[in-house]
């Protein structure tokens, strides 16, 4: 091989490498962009916000149980959820600050440290309620495009980023290819076991918040125990001003009052 041919080969290899790396980058950017657009239906772009939440837990051969709550979200890892109804639950609260979680009951007064695994209610974990920001916790990649009943969806695989506080290690997320609305998500345990599926069922325009289109209802179906599901219904979104310093065990009652 003469010197000119060697140089030519090097240029060609460099070109191919450069092209492939650009392509890979382009796919990654697309997945990230898709996820950001998904999050826009679930949060308010870095602003603190509050909402009322109704959880309806459904089990076979049992009456539905309904719980009314208020959620105050400082960011996806700093939040307070207080129980409003039924009357016997009133005053209970779940405080999340990073990986620190406390459960508070008026009867005990002392906030009890709990593990993130301890679920909020029915099929809904604290992460399901408070984590409204996939982008911060997960690295997305595009798995495939899929058509369901004539609608085209981009299927993302989200893997928890290193040291993230993600509630799940991995999930698959179906996103409408034209509107970027999340359609459904399958959540997996670290072992790969399918834990539950979330269906993002209802979107509403919020006239008092610049006609923002907001996700307002999620149905979570237990993948292991057939027939068990939980509906999460969101209402009365408000943009709030909160301080991270207030999300501490000693300030639960004061913070809860801000939600009233």
């Amino acid at each position, binding site marked *: 091989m003469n010197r000119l041919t060697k140089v030519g080969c090097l240029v060609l290899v460099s070109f191919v490498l450069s092209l492939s790396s650009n392509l890979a980058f382009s796919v990654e950017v697309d997945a990230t962009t898709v996820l950001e657009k998904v999050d826009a239906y679930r949060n308010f772009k870095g602003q603190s916000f509050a909402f009322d939440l109704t959880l309806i837990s459904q089990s076979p051969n049992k009456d539905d*149980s309904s*719980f009314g709550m208020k959620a105050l979200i400082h960011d996806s890892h700093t939040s307070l959820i207080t*129980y409003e*109804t*039924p*009357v*016997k*639950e*009133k*005053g*209970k609260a*779940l405080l999340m*600050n*990073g*990986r*620190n*979680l406390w*459960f508070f009951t*008026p*009867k*005990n*007064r*002392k906030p*009890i*440290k*709990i*593990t*993130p*695994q*301890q*679920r*909020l*209610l*029915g099929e809904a974990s604290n992460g399901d309620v408070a984590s409204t920001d996939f982008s911060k916790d997960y690295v997305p990649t595009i798995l495939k495009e899929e058509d369901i009943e004539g609608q085209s969806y981009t299927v993302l695989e989200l893997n928890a980023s290193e040291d993230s*506080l993600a*509630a799940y290690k991995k999930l698959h997320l179906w996103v409408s290819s034209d509107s970027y609305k999340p359609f459904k998500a399958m959540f997996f*345990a670290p072992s790969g076991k399918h*834990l539950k599926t979330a269906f993002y069922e209802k979107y509403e325009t919020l006239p008092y918040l610049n006609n923002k289109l907001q996700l307002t209802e999620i149905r979570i179906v237990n993948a292991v125990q057939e027939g068990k599901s939980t509906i999460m219904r969101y209402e009365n979104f408000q943009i709030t001003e909160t*301080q*991270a*310093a*207030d999300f*501490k*065990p*000693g*300030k639960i*009652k*004061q913070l809860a*009052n801000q939600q*009233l």
Partner: protein
Amino acid sequence: MRHFSLFGVLLAVSTNAAYADLNLLDGLTTSLVLEGERQFEQKGGALDPDRTLVPVADHSTRGVLRVGYSLYWDDYSIELRSRPSYSDSDEAGVNGEFQQRTEHFSVNYSGSLVTLSGGVTNFIEGAGYSWNPSNPFAEIRHNEKDNASQYVREGDPYFSAKLDGSDYGVRLLWTDFKNSEQDNQLYEGRLNSYAIKANFLLEASEVSATGALLQDKQFYGSSVSSTFGDQLELHGEVGVVEKGHSLEFVSTDVNLGPQTLSLYELQREEDEGWDTRLLLGGQYTFTDNTNVLVEYLYNGSGYSDSDWKRYRQAVEDASTNQQDPVLGSAHRGFLLNTHSTIGLFRQHYLFTRVAFAGSGDSDTLSLLARFNLHDESFLAGINKVWNIGDSWITNMSMNGFKGKAYSEYGWVPYELQLQASVEYFF
């Protein structure tokens, strides 16, 4: 009762149309609890084999009105937790007793950095579940009943100022702390106390350090709790307290002419040095939400093996001679005092609890046990909660105490406690 007067005024004001924008009833939570308890005597314990010293009321029933109230306006708030109750038979077998306890009443100002608070309260703090040695104002908890009682005891007067940063807090506290019955043998009445507590929040950890002056005793404590992954939480607490006084077991020989008898006493004595108390524990939550908690307790002020041997001998002697015409009453007094110190008698304990279902969930079942690692005596309990509709909760629990004739839990007056309660929320 003064708190109730204030409460009544607030309720009256709530009907005034001028205050319509401040809904004074929003912060009111009330429930009525009816509870019954059945106890079965423990026989065979060497401390009181015939149950003549500490009679066990075989049953008691109680009605409790739990009242919680909070009112917030601007940066100010008032909080109240109170519980008037009526018992038809208390543990001493006294019929018809009305009690009014105010667990908490406070007036608070919460600025952006500083929170000022004053009133009466119980200080229930620390990472541990079964014991909080890092809390200078924690009472000794002998069993799960005591564990529950700590939340409903009459609050102590206090004033505190707290500075809050984003990931830290510093609190200065004054309180006129009332000792538990057990600690009263060391210090009578109230302890004029001051404390400073700093706590820090890290991403997955909470750390606190406390320094306190309990009248004339220094106290230092620290607590840490960390979460590892989604399922594991580990915690530890340590407290060192200047002894000042200690409850010493004293044996005195009494010459009665033809014979010499020993007289035993628990005497409050001046003592130097420090007592260390330690708790190490952790909890693991399985994917089905079953939670397992294990805690090891070290009680530095408990009897060592050699002290225990002497003490046990004294109990044996006093128990045998409690009918002695001359020293019998002194022996019975010694045995009675011993009863009141059952709980953290010794140095090494293990506590464990398994809870099925979790926080906020509908029905829970929990099993628990505490082992005295010296004499293998233990308490074991089971508790079941049923939620009925939106307004009712029922609860049934059973605690059993088991041990040899000369063991700590073998000396508990009852071997079985059955409790049932029903609570209606208004």
